[in-house]
């Protein structure tokens, strides 16, 4: 399996996430799209970790496992962002009875 | 399976396929039998719930989704059986057939993950069936489920610390001809029993009792079957974790194998395993019936205020003992 397949797949997922953030208006769906972007990053980290393992250079293979551990922390960060988002979105919903981010434009002046 | 890789050949594929079919059939039969026992001996209480199906929150076509959720729940529950070792090995001709479908080094975590995914089934069920106070029902269910699943997860961790492995096969072989884990981890065992008793009953709670017997006959039956499958498989899992799995008590398995060969040992181990599982499942059924008397809010309170702290204390105590 060439790494480039995975890289292209991750970029595809990433840009679908960006597209969602730019086009959708629902805050929950926005959050899902951000999670999608983070998933793409996590996938790429694991792929590169594997890639480095096959090409172990001056460092031992232990160096390559950094990617997987980073992916572990990134999964945690994705969870943190998701929970934060749901908390904030719910607090926002309680005030405005809506999760539409069009409301945010009212802040300007 | 560190380092060495099993070469995939046709015999292995056939063997695994046969094993999958056999295990699925076994699980099916066991679940039906447990259900029969439950209805017959532990007194049936047919649910008298609301008969009409309220309109769903998510539009006009919930039926497909709910049915899909039920089927998925059943499949996911059965998938727990893939990582449970059912015995040591069988000798067919010149071939040693190991009795697990997949040996992965994260077996325990896999089972926990599949168990945790059961929350989606519960959500789908309540979302579509409960009419009054739907959101309250959903939140009570979530609270109860998370309390139980969290407590079970916390109860398993000390065991993993003792065994220093998340591979079920390793955990069983560590208990072989040695002290069972239950003597080290009695609180964990009890917590696992309680958690399984609560989680394996789809219509456990008050809301559940209200919805039991409501329309969607086939779907409801499927949820019930899922409950019994879960009961059986979790019983097996608990047996493997705490009661030595297929190990035969008081006798040295190694000596038996030397004396009678693999196939006889397999039969003896099967008897031992079945006996243990039947005991555990009987205890689970009884616990389920006892717990059914209590109100759901009380269960939630117990879960969060009693069982999770107990699991945490157990974890901390084991850690201190292990380090000291």
């Amino acid at each position, binding site marked *: *399996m060439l790494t480039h397949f995975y890289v292209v797949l991750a970029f595809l997922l990433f840009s679908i996430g960006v597209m969602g953030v730019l086009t959708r208006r629902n805050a929950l769906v926005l959050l*899902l799209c951000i999670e999608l972007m983070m998933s793409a990053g996590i*996938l790429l980290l694991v792929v590169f970790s594997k890639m480095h393992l096959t090409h172990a250079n001056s460092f031992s293979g232990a160096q390559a496992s950094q990617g997987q551990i980073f992916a572990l922390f990134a999964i945690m960060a994705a969870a943190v962002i998701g929970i934060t988002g749901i908390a904030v979105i719910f607090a926002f*919903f309680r005030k*405005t009875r809506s999760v*539409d981010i069009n409301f945010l434009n009212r802040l300007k002046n | 399976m*560190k380092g060495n890789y099993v070469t995939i050949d046709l015999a292995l594929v056939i063997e695994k396929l046969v094993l999958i079919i056999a295990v699925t059939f076994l699980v099916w039969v066991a679940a039906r039998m447990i259900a029969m026992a439950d209805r017959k001996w532990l007194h049936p209480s047919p649910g008298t719930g609301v008969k009409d199906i309220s309109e769903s929150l998510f539009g006009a076509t919930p039926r497909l989704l709910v049915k899909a959720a039920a089927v998925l729940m059943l499949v996911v529950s059965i998938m727990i059986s893939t990582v449970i070792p059912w015995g040591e090995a069988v000798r067919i001709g010149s071939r040693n057939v190991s009795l697990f479908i997949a040996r992965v080094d994260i077996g325990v975590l896999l089972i926990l993950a599949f168990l945790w995914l059961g929350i*989606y089934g519960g959500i789908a069920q309540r979302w579509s069936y409960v009419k009054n106070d739907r959101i309250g029902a959903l939140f009570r269910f979530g609270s109860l489920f998370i309390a139980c699943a969290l407590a079970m997860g916390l109860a398993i961790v000390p065991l993993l610390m003792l065994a220093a492995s998340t591979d079920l096969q390793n955990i069983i072989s560590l208990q072989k001809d040695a002290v069972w884990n239950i003597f080290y981890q009695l609180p964990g065992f009890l917590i696992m029993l309680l958690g399984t008793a609560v989680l394996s009953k789809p219509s456990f709670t008050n809301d559940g009792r209200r919805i039991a017997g409501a329309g969607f006959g086939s779907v409801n039956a499927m949820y019930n079957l899922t409950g019994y499958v879960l009961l059986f498989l979790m019983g097996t899992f608990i047996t493997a974790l705490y009661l030595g799995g297929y190990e035969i008590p008081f006798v040295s398995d190694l000596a038996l194998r030397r004396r009678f060969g693999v196939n006889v040992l397999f039969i003896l181990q099967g008897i031992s395993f079945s006996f243990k599982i039947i005991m555990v499942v009987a205890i689970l059924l009884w616990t389920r019936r006892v717990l059914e008397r209590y109100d759901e809010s009380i269960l939630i309170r117990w879960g969060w205020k009693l069982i999770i702290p107990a699991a945490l204390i157990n974890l901390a105590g084991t850690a201190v003992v292990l380090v000291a």
Partner: protein
Amino acid sequence: MGATFILFWILSTLAFAAAMGILVSKKELYSVLSFIVLVFAISGHFILMNAQFLAIVNILVVAGALGVMFLYGLILVRSHRDSEQVKILYMRIAGVIASLLLLIVLTAAVSKASQNEVVLRPGTWIGHVDKIGEELFSRFFVPFVISGLLLLSVLVGTVVIIINREPAPDPKSVTL
């Protein structure tokens, strides 16, 4: 090569379809369900790359915990229906074009990296749970503690932002 290749394409198609499902589905519920499918597809990729521990953690944390959080968030939000406003068309088109450009630029930039063309080889030990545990408690101990603090801060913050003892304002008084 064969089996891995086929599985790769199946899982990639699934991931792509799920991602599109998040993007285009009108109902949020289907977005959440697509997201869960996506998580499973990515976990499948992890297993293909012999990173079982990460795969199962991904399922447990993201599909198990986070997906449920999303569902409950959805329940709270959708129980009060309101009409969803549609974004202005040219903004949408601009967003689509911008992200497609991003995709093209990223792919073009990386496609030049011919020196990095490396073949993945299956079967190595680093994805195993004991190795990850060892690393996590020796070399990565400091990040581990920091991530604990991060989770704790989210816990505190959620309490701060959600639990308020003052009565919420009347929804009708909010001028839109």
